[in-house]
């Protein structure tokens, strides 16, 4: 679990997870597109994410595809969120969104 939190404690790595959340199963090249990061840096971040099991890869023909692996994040949710009144948290999140929308 330590590895998961360390891996998440970096904005670049969270950005990579966001990109996989938007579109799952990308190659290294696709993940690098439009990012202000060197290919080497992306490779290094992906290795850390993979070691934490937040990213999983498979070989698909000649390509290596990267997937967001939701299992560890789900386990965090189960351990720390589910038991604390998920319904109320949802309601508060909804209230926040509505208030922010009104102010916009």
């Amino acid at each position, binding site marked *: 679990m330590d590895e998961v939190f360390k891996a998440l404690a970096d904005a670049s790595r969270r950005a990579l997870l966001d990109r996989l959340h938007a579109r*799952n*199963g990308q190659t290294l090249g696709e993940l690098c597109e439009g990012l202000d990061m060197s290919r080497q840096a992306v490779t290094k971040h992906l290795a850390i994410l993979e070691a934490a099991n937040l990213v999983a890869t498979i070989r698909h023909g000649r390509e290596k595809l990267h*997937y967001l692996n939701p*299992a560890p994040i*789900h386990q965090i949710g*189960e351990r720390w969120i589910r038991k604390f009144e998920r319904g109320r948290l949802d309601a508060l999140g909804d209230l926040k969104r509505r208030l922010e929308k009104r102010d916009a």
Partner: protein
Amino acid sequence: MRKPEFLYVIYIETTPDTLWRALTDPAFTRRYWMNCELISDWKVGSPMTMTRDGEVKNECVIRESDPPRRLAYDWVSVHDPEMKREKPSRVTYTLEPQGKLVRLTVTHENFTDGSKTLPSVSFGWPMVLSSLKSVLETGKPLDLTPPLIAETEAEHGRA
């Protein structure tokens, strides 16, 4: 060849034989798969049904069966008329021992464009696999209580 829509990897402290039994024994699947019983003789070409409270939720056909290493089946969700019309998707499990752990890889692929089954199963898989891990490691499933299952079904359809 389309790329798989979903890939999940989970590490479980167990043996491949125990994990295989957990995937194929209906009394065991009930404990972590939202009360679902997966019933089949697990031979290639055989049907497999996933039933809950006697109601068939998903109809599958076994495509690969190599205990305790690899299992694959075609999947049609029959509990929803729109999903029932979609062509079968494919679930594949790969079990690899790594020291005291087993690395379980699950892919779910070959979905129809605009599939309604895809968002449904993508919501269900993490719950099912986390609960599977919990049962094997602690003897207790996750508390996926009936209200939560009902809420999940209402929001996302069901895996």
